[in-house]
């Protein structure tokens, strides 16, 4: 994971030489992953001794960065990176079960905007490689068996549509509330059922589609 992050950082720095714009954003993220929902639903159904049910993965936080370095009229493009965290926690007597789900997306984004204006609506489409990491904690500590953490990694592709509106905050910065809707049609994460329901192949597929929606705020350095 550290190597990937370093690679992204290097890429960001390298592209900064020709950079026209650097954006950072934070958002609330909603996700729905049908197959993972099914696994958690099965976990809950099959364990009546868990009074409090394990919530489905739904809401979490996200940070994103975009570096735009080419421009043609109103179209600019560049690299994008985002990290999201979603948690599912159930608290039962003697047994607090927490599922920590991390997403990292790295991709290419194309933005349409009227960049000459401080106030300007913009729209983005981005294509990215999606990776996920799922970890399980029990009673506050990593769940370990056979001397290793219970974990599942995933990989897939993602398409995102973003729309926002830049507002000039002060002489230095603009900010933009935005809405992002994305879909990952295929995230291959074969160990997910092993982590959540502690079975393999009992519930179904080793991949899932993930819908995500974000509402957030982006910030950029004022170019005027």
């Amino acid at each position, binding site marked *: 994971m550290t190597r990937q992050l370093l690679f992204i950082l290097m890429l960001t720095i390298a592209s900064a030489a020709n950079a026209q714009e650097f954006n950072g954003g934070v958002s609330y993220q909603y996700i729905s992953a049908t197959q993972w929902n099914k696994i958690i*639903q099965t976990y809950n159904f099959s364990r*009546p001794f868990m009074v409090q049910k394990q919530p489905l993965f739904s809401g979490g936080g996200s940070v994103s960065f975009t570096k735009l370095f080419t421009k043609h009229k109103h179209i600019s493009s560049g690299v994008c990176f985002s990290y999201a965290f979603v948690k599912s926690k159930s608290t039962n007597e003697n*047994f607090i079960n927490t599922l920590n789900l991390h997403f990292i997306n790295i991709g290419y984004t194309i933005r349409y905007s009227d960049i000459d204006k401080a106030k300007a609506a913009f729209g983005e489409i981005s294509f990215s490689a999606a990776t996920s990491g799922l970890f399980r904690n029990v009673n506050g500590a990593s769940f370990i068996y056979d001397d290793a953490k219970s974990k599942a990694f995933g990989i897939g592709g993602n398409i995102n549509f973003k729309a926002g509106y830049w507002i000039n905050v002060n002489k230095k910065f603009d900010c933009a509330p935005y809405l992002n809707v994305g879909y990952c049609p295929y995230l291959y994460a074969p160990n997910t059922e092993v982590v959540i329901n502690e079975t393999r192949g009992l519930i179904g597929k080793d991949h899932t589609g993930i819908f995500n929606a974000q509402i957030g705020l982006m910030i950029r350095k004022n170019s005027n």
Partner: protein
Amino acid sequence: MKRRDFLKQSAFVSIGGLLLPSQLLSSCKKDSLFEEIKFDGKVLIIGAGAAGLYAGYLLQSKGIDFQILEAGANYGGRLGKLTGFANFPVDLGAQWLHGKNSIVGDLIKSSKTKITIDESSTVFWFNNQLISTLPKNPYIFEDKNLPDISFKDYAVQKGLGTEYKNIIENIAGDQGAAASLLSVYFNNLEEKNWSSGDDDYKFEETYFDLIDKQIATPVKNKIRENTIVKKIDYSLDTIVITDSENNIYNADKVIITVPITVLKSNDIEFLPGLSSVKTTAFSKIGMGAGMKVFLKFSNKFFDENIIGGNICAAYADESIGKIQDDNILLAFIMGDQADYLTSLGSDNAITAALLQELDQMYNGAASASFIGSHVQNYTTNPFIKGAYSYSTIGMGDSRKIAAQSIDKKIYFAGEAMNINGHHQTVHGAIETGYREVINMLNDLKK
């Protein structure tokens, strides 16, 4: 547009954008399956082993009417407990928790049941002496491109001579089989789905205690023991079950959890008869002989695990993981060795044969300090007839076919019906118990 107006509008749009998918996906967003299903019918569960008990426990939690018919005098199946023999409770059946990444692991955590990892040491009886390390590694059955031949033949192919015969019998015995009958290929294929972890744990009490307290207790009043099901007529909407006393039971759904040996030997008659595909699948799932003999001694002359005996390929110190420390040695006998000992005809003869072997290993120390024994022979139990299921040569998809339901009325559970690598285990049986309740409720939705 003024900034304030814009912010209002964008907030409205954004919230709408988030709520819309939530509404669209609301049917997928329930925490648990089947929250909306109401089933007023009756379910009969045949067999009160781990799978049957768990299916009942689950149905009870969902408010569905059910009854469990158990052929034996006690519930628990291949789980059991012996008290009074030692100063700690002894597991008559399954005793090791194989990996803690399982539903049983969750049950143990939530009930604060005490378990300890079994890190006991092993010696091998090899060329008539006890040694701690074998000249060659006999654990060769998890390779790539394995052939569909027996463990015995594969060991010979790999240069493990007759001196390794009983070591190989022990490895196959762990899988419930004689080495000559267990498929290297299919055993490995099924093992690849194993996801529970490799460490073995022992219960401070017994495995039976966990299942009894957490699962069986809530459904005890629904178990009818000494009820031997002889016929299942599912030709009409209502399924009619007849027992050996000609009592009739009606049900809308039946979950069969009996050992595979009972199905293989046609102890239960089905009307209409089962398809040849189904019966062939049953026949291809192996289940060999198995017994446990507990030997009590006045002193501890034996090692923690002794592998490779000619009469018994696996002895284990039963006191490991227990609070008390009576000197109890478990003889865990499977396959051909269990068949041979069963053929001796009496518990005394079985005990004598084991003592003779231990005397040879420990220079007469066994007979000198022997106090008593208890023989638990699952092979001669008419409602179990063996140890647990194993992968036979050429078995193909037999477990999958065997586990398929019939006409949305008859469902099959039990360790032998576990198709995701957890057959032979209690948690594997439990998984099939809840799997079939889910399948049954899914069929009601369709």
